[in-house]
């Protein structure tokens, strides 16, 4: 692998929410690195902390009740968590941009689409009204919205779901961000529209030289989109590595179970799906040992006592499991 530039280094990130019901351990000791040009997938079930981790990077955790307890987010050698609000605002939307899950609610209904795009441009790039407007139109056509100039004056409710997500992408791209964080951007869209959006982001990534963090629960999208993947469970990364390694030789029983629970597209005979018994834990209160232990078929005593650390299997694969050598894909 050629020498690539390290742009993001997340170290030991821990985010908790102090609610009336108790302390929610949303993200626990999360560490990973990202190089320029990477498309990093973060995959896990709902409530596993994948969105919270993204908001932590952006410094958008509502506080209170949320609090980043520990860790570093080093972006080009600068720890984002140590920045004050003003410095962070210069990064947000400029160096790191984000798009969200539900395009129907992510755009302000009482402001025009054009205004919302121009706003970011004017803020970060010091452009005048006219210039910003031209740039906004350019961006809209870049993301494949026809008659972009006229559509600037439309309100979000004139746009379909797919178009709104395109507009959101245009907004995110307005300042040529280094990293684009996409938080389940296609979950609420139809598959044909999802395919369009995935394609669009892939093309733009090449064109603009961005790096992308793609958060999703859909392993199919991960397989299509990304080159590196973090698998999350109960607030922790339990397996990470290059997408080929993780899908071919998963070494955490959860990853194995997740892959097994998906129908095999090649199968001709009817085989029952593998199903992981039980339910994911809620994250209130500290979990003793490995959070997956109570659903795991490989469980040993040690799992109930100690959380296994991420262990390097090879250059491209790390896994957190005491019994990883016994685990095999079926």
């Amino acid at each position, binding site marked *: 692998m050629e020498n690539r530039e390290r742009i993001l280094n997340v170290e030991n990130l821990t985010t908790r929410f102090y609610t009336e019901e108790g302390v929610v351990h949303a993200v626990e000791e999360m560490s990973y690195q990202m190089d320029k040009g990477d498309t990093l997938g973060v995959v896990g079930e709902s409530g596993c902390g994948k969105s919270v981790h993204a908001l932590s990077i*952006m410094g*958008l955790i509502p506080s209170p009740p949320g609090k980043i307890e520990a860790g570093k987010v080093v972006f080009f050698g600068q720890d984002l968590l140590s920045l004050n*609000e003003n410095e962070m*605002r*210069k*990064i*947000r*939307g*400029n160096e790191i*941009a*984000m798009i*969200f899950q*539900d395009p129907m*609610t*992510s*755009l*302000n*209904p*009482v*402001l025009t689409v054009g205004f*919302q795009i121009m*706003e*970011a441009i004017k*803020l*970060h790039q010091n452009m005048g009204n006219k210039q910003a407007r031209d740039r906004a139109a350019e961006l809209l056509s870049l993301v494949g919205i026809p008659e972009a100039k006229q559509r600037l004056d439309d*309100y979000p*409710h004139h746009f379909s779901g797919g178009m709104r997500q395109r507009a*959101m992408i245009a*907004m995110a791209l307005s300042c040529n961000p280094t990293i684009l964080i996409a938080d389940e951007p296609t979950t609420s869209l139809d598959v044909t529209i999802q395919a369009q959006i995935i394609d669009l982001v892939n093309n733009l990534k090449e064109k603009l030289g961005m790096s992308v963090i793609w958060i999703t629960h859909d392993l199919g999208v991960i397989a299509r989109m990304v080159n590196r993947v973090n698998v999350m469970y109960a607030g922790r990364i339990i397996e990470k590595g290059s997408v080929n390694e993780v899908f071919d030789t998963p070494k955490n029983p959860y990853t194995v179970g997740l892959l097994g629970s998906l129908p095999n597209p090649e199968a001709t005979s009817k085989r029952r799906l593998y199903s992981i018994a039980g339910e994911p834990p809620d994250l209130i209160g500290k979990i003793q040992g490995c959070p997956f232990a109570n659903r795991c078929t490989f469980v040993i005593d040690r799992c109930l006592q100690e959380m296994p650390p991420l262990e390097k299997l090879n250059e491209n694969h790390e896994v957190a499991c005491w019994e990883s050598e016994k685990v095999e894909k079926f």
Partner: protein
Amino acid sequence: MTAYILRRLLILPVIMFGVTILIFAMLMLLDPIERATLYVSDVPRTATAVQKIIEKYGLNEPIPKQYIRWLVGNKDEVTGEIEGGILRGELGWSHTAQMPVTEAIMTKLPVTLELALWSIGPIMASGIYVGIQAAVNHNKFIDQFSRVFAVVAWSFPTFVFALLMLMIFYSGLDWLPPESLSQWAKNIVWDPTVFTQYTKINTVDAILNWRWDVFLDAVKHLILPVFGLSYLIFAQVMRVMRSSMLETLREDYIKTARSKGLSERVVRNLHARKNAMLPVVTIGGLLFIGLLTGVVITETIYNLHGLGRLFVNSAAAFDVVTLLGLVLFSSFVMVGGNLLVDVLYGFFDPRVRLS
């Protein structure tokens, strides 16, 4: 949007028809002779004269006939003169005011309008401001304070508040007297040679006549009534603004705005406030109710000769014709106000405006 407004406008006559039916039904609870004041100013006392009046105005005819007559008036067969008829703006004779009800409304309206004018602006502006401050400082001091204030204000009867204020600031400290003007100011205002009453609204007239002494006197007399009239509605606007702002700040598009790197000030004032205003607009109708109810109590206690006081006096004197005239008028204000609110809503929300 236009279709929606048009639809409301078309329903309007239906509502107003219902309103007249309801008012007429209340009228029918009266004895026939009591209803005579709808058409004549002094009702005779002798039995035969009474009978004559009842027959002349058909006050014991079938109800639909009486209803029509109440609407369009009674035509004198001999002279061809038409008396009464609410559609002609004739609401009957007010015993309490000793003039026709319509005229009474027009004479007393300026006093009430003055109160309302001085109340609405400050209520809206300060209620919205404090509500926003409470929301963005959620669970901090100002939020808790606003909450306590709202609940306490909501529990404090207007009439108790007004009397306590008078106890402290009038009979105790003698700072802020009741009534609308001091005697010397009244003498100026009522003297047409030195003072022209353009609008009959004291503060406005004082400015137009360039009489700052009168203006200050009027303001001094307005302070207590305006406070008494506003604190309830203020509490309401503040609470609605607070909760809608809180809700708006949780919306996804606020997250989007923040992720663009906008400052918190822009996020609040531009992205959140505009959306959060919508529920405040919808309670605009409540504002009218609050004002109309408030003036009744306020004017009674502060001895202001406006519509509210006329209302209470007519109630005390069993002057039902005046009462119903006033109720009819206030329901007009309400219906008109609600229509205005609908239009405003469309103005604020592009989703409604353009659909």
